[in-house]
């Protein structure tokens, strides 16, 4: 084989590799098993049934939170998660991503298999915020003890 053939083959291989790389960039990276995520991944995870947890204080939560989130302040997380299903994905967030990073580390250390942290926190959230008290966890599973939900209206 002469050097011209070698160069041609190498060039062809590089072109194929480049095409494959650009294709994977277009389709996007899959969500990791655990780790930091952005707004798009958070929405995908929640839509897929992940538990969404706001680890800020109650006052911060009531002032504005992502719809569907339950409030578990980070200093009370150990007690709150005691009965949670560790195989179910959990997404945590706070204002800037730092308290929730600690929460993610704790949950991971406790054996939770899929834990995600909204990397830049609520500060970079691009959706609307709900106000007021948590209405309960977005998922039917409740670990707050026996609960009665009374759905009522003003009318």
């Amino acid at each position, binding site marked *: 084989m002469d050097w011209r053939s070698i160069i041609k083959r190498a060039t062809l291989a590089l072109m194929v590799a480049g095409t494959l790389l650009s294709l994977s960039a277009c389709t996007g990276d899959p969500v990791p098993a655990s780790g930091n995520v952005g707004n798009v991944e958070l929405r995908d995870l929640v839509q897929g049934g992940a538990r969404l947890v706001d680890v800020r204080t109650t006052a911060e939560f009531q002032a504005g939170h992502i719809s569907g989130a339950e409030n578990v302040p980070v200093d009370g997380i150990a007690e709150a998660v005691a009965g949670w299903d560790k195989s179910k994905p959990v997404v945590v967030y706070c204002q800037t991503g730092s308290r929730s990073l600690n929460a993610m580390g704790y949950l991971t250390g406790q054996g939770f298999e899929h834990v995600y942290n909204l990397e830049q926190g609520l500060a970079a959230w691009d959706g609307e915020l709900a106000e007021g008290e948590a209405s309960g966890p*977005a998922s*039917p599973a409740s670990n*707050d003890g*026996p609960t*009665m*939900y009374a*759905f*009522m209206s003003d009318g």
Partner: protein
Amino acid sequence: MKPVVDGLKKKYSGTYDIRVLNTSTGGADVERLASQYGVQYVPTFIFVDSAGNQSGFVVGEVPVSTLERELSKLD
């Protein structure tokens, strides 16, 4: 029913978590929960045990004894 539910909240404080969800003003959070539990009419009362299993579903303005009976099943 609100006075009845408020009375239950006081009576069973510390035993059962009784949450009033206003479908008129609760917003997306309440809508989502209502949808997940299949709530179509108000008032509707959903009973969930500590393991997250739904144990009761009561629709309408029922006697307080009915709600207390469902609550007792959560023990």
